[in-house]
């Protein structure tokens, strides 16, 4: 009989086993899907846990791991988005290897690190002890450092360096906060340790000035990993330079895991210091994040950086919701975590595909995607709608609930300011993505992306170019001759037969990627209409944090 304690270890053990398999087997047709398999196991274990812990929390492994409704929900988030990212990885790497930008060894190492990354994140949300939580989050920084710097280009190395230095500094501040909280706890009447449940229960006996210092350090430290002001400068660089599946995971999940840590700290802080302190701190950081995102999104020229700044905005919204602190706000915040994670993962995977098609990350040079690849453009467009909070996607429901809760809690001025900033960001994102999806296709989309010869011709001859796409590209190469691209089009015309078939085969988004994108969007939409059994879990999880006087 499977004891409950074992279920707690599965989400951590399964990805570690997958990583070991990658170390041994490398990247092959069969092993490519191991990562997705591990993610599925994590998701299933998460759902099992969710049903088990709705009555009472589950503790295992000598008190080092613990699952309550909040951890179960976060585990679902991790599992779902990891599944999306790892399911899109085989197609992503197939295209990268075909283009000569990666080797099978790179792909194997990537999948190994991603599996370890998922294991570390699962460990963080299942940690029963603040110290273990810290160790797990630090582990994610170290693992992702190599993932961010995977392509050995100058910007990638610079991004990796900034990422490690800034995040390690933030995490070091969080460690100082942990140690000071431990000090306050051992000197309190209840003599608690760093065990989260004990600490939350004994929090009202903690010395106030010392706890204030500890909580401030912890929130600022974990806020660094979440992308909140002031130590947010690493986020746009790291998320834009990392490969697409990694960006999806980092933006979608890692930021939320850091937010989970902040939620746990907030529970302790509210019990010890009253809700005012954490609320004020989170409000300041949230407004700072929204302002930074709004000002820097307007002039953004790189679409991956644009998505990264947009993540900062949503993290600001999460912090805002957490600052409000009522059960309704917290439930909305948790739903937002899931919705944002899904939509952001879809967009990053889509943008990774756009990068592979066009070879550029500049918004200016990508135009008319709807003409060349309607499916991809449709998914990206719907993803943008989802992120901007349009119904039926779940972000609409969660943002609405958050703002309502904010007004109800008396934070009207702050919420109005936040809404204005969100409006600015919406306009910016609309403008940039509209530019990319609509209009006549840009040269970057029409001309074949440069690639080594032999593999490309093999692919061209092997696949019979699907006629609809060939006709559309032929139709669009005609107007191109009338533009100022005359000399280039002459070259394009002479190389047209091979070019069109090559472009055709390259422009066709792989089926697995499309399935992943559509699955993500569908889940987001379904959640927006009816949360189903998830609703009860959300309310239980919200009560875990808000259940303080």
């Amino acid at each position, binding site marked *: 009989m499977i004891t409950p304690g074992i279920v707690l270890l599965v989400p951590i053990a399964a990805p570690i086993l997958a990583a070991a398999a990658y170390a041994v087997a490398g990247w092959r047709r069969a092993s490519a899907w191991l990562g997705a398999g591990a993610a599925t196991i994590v998701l299933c274990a998460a759902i099992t846990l969710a049903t088990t812990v709705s009555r009472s929390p589950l503790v295992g492994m000598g008190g080092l791991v613990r699952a309550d409704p909040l951890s179960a929900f976060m585990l679902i988030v991790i599992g779902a988005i990891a599944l999306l990212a790892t399911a899109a990885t085989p197609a992503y790497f197939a295209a990268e290897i075909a283009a000569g930008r990666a080797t099978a060894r790179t792909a194997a190492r990537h999948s190994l690190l991603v599996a370890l990354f998922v294991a570390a994140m699962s460990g963080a949300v299942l940690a029963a002890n603040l110290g273990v939580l810290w*160790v797990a989050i630090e582990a994610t920084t170290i693992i992702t450092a190599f993932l961010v710097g995977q392509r050995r280009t100058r910007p990638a190395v610079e991004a990796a*360096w900034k990422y490690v230095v800034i995040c390690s*500094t933030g995490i070091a501040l969080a460690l100082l906060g942990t*140690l000071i909280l431990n000090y306050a706890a051992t000197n309190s009447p209840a003599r608690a340790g*760093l065990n989260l449940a004990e600490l939350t229960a004994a929090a009202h006996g903690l010395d106030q000035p010392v706890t204030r*210092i500890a909580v401030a350090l912890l929130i600022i430290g974990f806020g660094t990993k979440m992308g909140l002001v002031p130590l947010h400068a690493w986020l746009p660089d790291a998320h834009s330079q990392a490969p697409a599946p990694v960006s999806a995971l980092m933006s979608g999940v890692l930021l939320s895991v850091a937010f989970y840590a902040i939620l746990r700290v907030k529970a302790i802080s509210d019990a010890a210091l009253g809700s005012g302190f954490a609320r004020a701190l989170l409000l300041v950081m949230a407004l700072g994040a929204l302002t930074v995102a709004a000002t820097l999104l307007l002039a953004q020229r790189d679409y991956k950086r644009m998505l990264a700044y947009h993540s900062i905005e949503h993290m600001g919204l999460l912090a805002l919701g957490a600052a409000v602190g009522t059960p309704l706000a917290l439930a909305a915040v948790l739903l937002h975590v899931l919705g944002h994670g899904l939509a952001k993962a879809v967009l990053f995977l889509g943008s990774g595909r756009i990068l592979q098609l066009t070879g550029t990350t500049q918004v200016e040079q990508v135009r008319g995607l709807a003409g060349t690849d309607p499916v991809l453009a449709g998914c990206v467009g719907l993803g943008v709608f989802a992120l901007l909070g349009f119904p039926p996607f779940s972000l609409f429901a969660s943002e609405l609930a958050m703002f309502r809760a904010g007004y109800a809690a008396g934070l009207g001025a702050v919420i109005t300011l936040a809404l204005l900033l969100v409006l600015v960001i919406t306009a910016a994102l609309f403008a940039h993505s509209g530019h990319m999806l609509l209009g006549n296709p840009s040269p970057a989309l029409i001309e074949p992306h440069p690639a080594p010869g032999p593999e490309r011709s093999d692919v061209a001859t092997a696949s019979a170019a699907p006629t609809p796409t060939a006709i559309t590209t032929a139709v669009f190469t005609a107007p191109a001759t009338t533009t100022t691209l005359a000399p280039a089009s002459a070259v394009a015309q002479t190389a047209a037969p091979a070019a069109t078939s090559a472009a055709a085969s390259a422009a066709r988004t792989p089926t697995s990627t499309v399935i992943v994108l559509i699955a993500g969007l569908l889940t987001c939409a379904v959640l927006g209409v009816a949360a189903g059994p998830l609703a009860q879990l959300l309310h239980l999880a919200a009560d875990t944090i808000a259940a303080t006087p």
Partner: protein
Amino acid sequence: MTETLYVQLLDLACGGLLLGAVLVLWRRELSVIIRMFAAQGVALAALVAVLAAHQRSVDLWVVAVGLLILRASVLPLLLARALTAAGPARRETRPLVNVAASLLAAAVLALLAYAVSRPLVALAPSPATQAIPVGVTVVLIGFFVLVTRRRALSQLVGFLLMDNGITTVGFLTTASVSLVVELGVSLDVLLAVLVLRILTARIQETFGDADLDELAELHD
């Protein structure tokens, strides 16, 4: 161990920590900075050893030996290897804030650390907790070095100084931090340094010199 001897040795170890931090801020030659960091590691291990002798705790003795190996030998060795691979430039020539001003800023940071740690000392006054401001000063000085130096190795040493300071505060506040957590922290420090070392090497390859002033391509 008598009480006065304990207090004296504790204070001497803290003085050594402070002096190490000041000398890292003061000197320009990278090899000297690394040696000062190693000396500070020895002072930290001595501090934990004094605490261990006072509390007669075997755990703490083990941790003291571990700290001596990790922070006084392994980490400086790694840094020295990175230095030899770094090329001819061996000095921090143009820090963001010049040396005289940084030393005066460190004085201000010391006062700030003292002010901030007052509630911490007031919670449980004892000779050990009265030395907490020393740890906080080292953290602040490490942060300052991290932010104002241009060379990758100097920034790395600044980060490690911060970590030394945090470890000091940890051991002075409660000597009973769980062994698991201490192991985890040490492992993370080691891995962070390894990662940064590898990244320094990559920066060397791609940029030609580990002067982080060159890293200005990603900006808005």
